[in-house]
Structure formats: C-alpha cells, structure tokens
C-alpha cells in the first residue's frame, strides 16, 4: 500500500524539510519501517532499539492506532499516517 506519512515539525530537519513523505507497507509497523529506511535519521527519534518510543502517537486518518490494532493496524492505499509528539498532559 502507498500511504502518506505526516512529519511533525521537530523531525522535519531529518526529512529534508518535508512535511509529508511517501511510504509503503501493509500495516503501521511496516510503514514506519519503510519510513526509517528512506530517512535513516528518523530511526533514533522513532525507535528506542526495536521498540517504538513512548511519547510518539500515531494516527491513521486522524484515529489514534491505540484504539485500533496498534502497530498491527492495517493501512489501505492513500491513508494518511500522522506522527504526533505526545507532549501535553493532565
């Protein structure tokens, strides 16, 4: 599947300033793996070793994947996967 990944401003220096980048993959996990292959600088921001960092929220078409199947959430052609720093709080 071809999807669009939205990059938040604190990560854009690692995607040559691009706000949106293209990626491939059947699940959210696969899409993220593809993104960090294309933009290796993002790996350290998104992953701690093999694990996705705690303070990044992932939205598929505006829906937080934690309400779906998390990283196993299936993505269809053309969806928007947004990476959002979870910075605020109660």
């Amino acid at each position, binding site marked *: 599947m071809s999807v669009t990944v939205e990059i938040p401003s604190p990560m854009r220096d690692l995607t040559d300033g691009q706000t949106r980048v293209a990626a491939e993959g059947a699940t959210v996990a696969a899409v993220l793996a593809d993104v960090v292959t294309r933009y290796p600088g993002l790996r*350290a*921001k998104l992953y701690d070793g093999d694990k996705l960092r*705690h303070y990044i929220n992932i939205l598929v078409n505006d829906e937080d994947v934690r309400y779906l199947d998390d990283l196993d959430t299936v993505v269809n052609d053309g969806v928007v996967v947004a990476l959002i720093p979870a*910075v605020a*709080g*109660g």
Partner: protein
Amino acid sequence: MATSQAEFTIGLQCKLCGKIYPKSPVNFCTDDFGPLEVVYDYPAIRANVSRAQIEARPRTMWRYRELLPLDGEPTVGPQVGGTPLIRADRLAKELGVSKLWIKNDAVNFPTLSFKDRVVSVALSKAREFGFKTVGCASTGNLANSVAANAAQAGLEAYVFVPSDLERAKILNTSVYGAKVIAVHGTYDEVNRLCTQVAFKFNWGFVNINLRPFYAEGSKTMGFEIAEDLGWRFPQHVIAPMAGGSLIGKIHKSFEELYKVGLVNEAPRTKMYGAQATGCNPITDAVKTGRDRHKPVRKPNTICKSLAIGDPADGYFSKNLIHTTGGWADDVTDDEIVEGMLLLARTEGIFAETAGGVTIAVARKLLAENRLPRDEEIVLCITGNGLKTQDALEDAVEKPALIKPSLDAFLEVFSGGDMGLAKSYGPAVLV
C-alpha cells in the same frame, strides 16, 4: 556553594534520555519527545536547609521553598498548603486497619483541592517568565484553581474544559472572571486542542508548557505528610490518579527529603494508585502488566475529575507502583458513592468523587490482601465534596418535612435515643 533560591534549581531534564535544558517554558525533549522534569542541586540545598528553619516558617507549602523551582519569592498563592493530616480512627475501625491517616486537601486554600499547590508554583513561574495570559486544560479542579489564583495575580486566564463537567466546577471557574471554553469532547480532546493553542499563542499553559514546574507543586503534599508524621515516611500511601502526576510527586518528595538530609532513613513507602473503573488506563496497565497503558477513548464515570483517558504520566506512575511494591485498583460509581458516604460518616470529611475513589479502592485493596491491616497507611483526599454534589443526589436521604409541632416531630422520630431530655423529668419543657 550555592546559597540563593535561584541557584537551587539547575534546569530541566528529559525523563527518557537525560538531556538537560535551561529553565524555560518548555515541556518536552526535542530528541525523543520525553517529558521534562526539574533538576535541583541537592548538595547545595542540603547545606542550606534544616528542620528547625522549616518549622519556624508559616505553615504553608512554601516552607519547603528550597525544593520548589522558583527563582524568587512566590508571588501567587503564598498561603496555599498546610492542610491537616488527621488520624482517622473511626474510618480505620470500619476498614479493619490499625493505623490510618487522612491528608485532607479537601480544605486546601483557596479553591478546595490539591490543585492550588501546582497552580501557585505554575503561576508564580509564569510571572517570572513574563507571561500576561495563562491557561489550562482541566477536568475541573485545575480550572477552579487557575481561575482563582490568576485573579489574585492579575493575570488573564483561559480555561478549557470538557462541556459535560459538573455545573459547580464550571461556576467555580467563571466566578473569578476567567474565560471558560467548554469543548464538546473528552479531556484528551480538550488537551490536544490546548497544545495547539499553546503553540500558536504565547500563553503560559500551566499543564502544557509550564508543566515541569507545575507538577513540582504536588510534592508539597508529601513534604507535609512526612513532616507531620515527625519527619518520617508512612509505609503505604494511596493516591487518586488522573494524569498520574500526583502519585509520582508524592514519592519524589520522600526521596528528596532523604537526599537533602531532612529525613535520615531512605523511603520504603509502597505507593498505591486509585481510579474509577469507567476510566482506568493506569490501574489496568498495573493489573495486566502491559508496558504502555491502553487509552480509554470515552471515559464513563461520575468521577469526572479523574477522567483522563490518555494519562501523560501513565507510564511513570505504573512503573512507580511496581517498583515500590504497591498496587492499583479501580472502583465502580456505586462504590465511589459508598466511599464518599463512609468518609463523611466516620470522619466528618466531605470529599469529592475522587475521595470516594480513594476510600473505596483502599477498602478493595484490603479485601484483596494487597494492603496489610497492621501497618501505617495514608489516604490522600484531594478535593471537596461541595463541588460534586450531583453525584450524591440519590444517595442521601431527603430531609423529613414536618409542621413546626412536637407531635409532628414525634411522628417521624422513630424511637432513637432521647438523650439528655429524659433527665429533665416528665415534660418540664413542654
């Protein structure tokens, strides 16, 4: 050796990677988006504090000012804190435990919840940073506190709340002249909106860009508990959790008292967290052992003050509960009401729904043998029942309505103890 208040606070540090940032209104690490926490120069503080010096100061949270992140004197909320720690023997008897205390922030000044502690730090800091407008996303108590303390400080306040909040919590915000924005949505949606507002406007949002400073205020609840126990720590503390910050800061306060030499023995206190079953992301993570909490999309509980579905400090509070050897549990709306009534009828304390959660969870943990009956337990009551009266609408008896005559009274009086009246002899007063 540092000797001035400003030098006791070094800066902010990422809780994930340890990177240090200067004291500024930022709340996340640009490397990994981890939350930032205030770091202190503990050796310098240790050389500059003593029990005698603290005890000689007024009984407010600011008697522990060396361990709070201001550069100067507090200018907002100078009289916050200093709430009673009471020995709760009648409640202890009901619960079947031997040593029980209640830390009663239902009577914290000025807005009757522990939130005045965090807000006085946040708004004093907001003034140091030069903000003229402040704001917050709130489940109610924070809204009240930001509005009142901003009024006292002469700051403009924008307060964002979920639109289904209790009437009293909204009125208790508007009265102070704050601009209240009621958002159709959950707290988490309100919070996300506020993050966007905070990035666009140069305002001091107490629980967003001022959050590292704000959160430190909760430590004073723990400082007071330890001082009132005679400069030592209880074996067990139960605290209600929404974002999961308070419980962590109470424990941090114990560690700090030890680090700066005010208490000689390291804390071994077990921390227990309490939530409502209708919004239990943290207790669920503790009980199931999952690494990341699963957010609750649509919280559904009478305890609106704790209804945060995606808690910012969920991860840290869960870890704290595990590492200290405590536990966590959640209770239903009926149990919450029972908890409120039990506290009111044994100790004469009218706590809000969050207090009902804490009492009911204590009872549940005891029943599950998660909490020993013969050790020292402190229950944290964090808000006042006058603000959540809706929750008790059907739970308390309506008053007996009678004519102003003795006969009418005798008709409803169902033969209880007549007390002293008997000793006056036969009907002398009639």
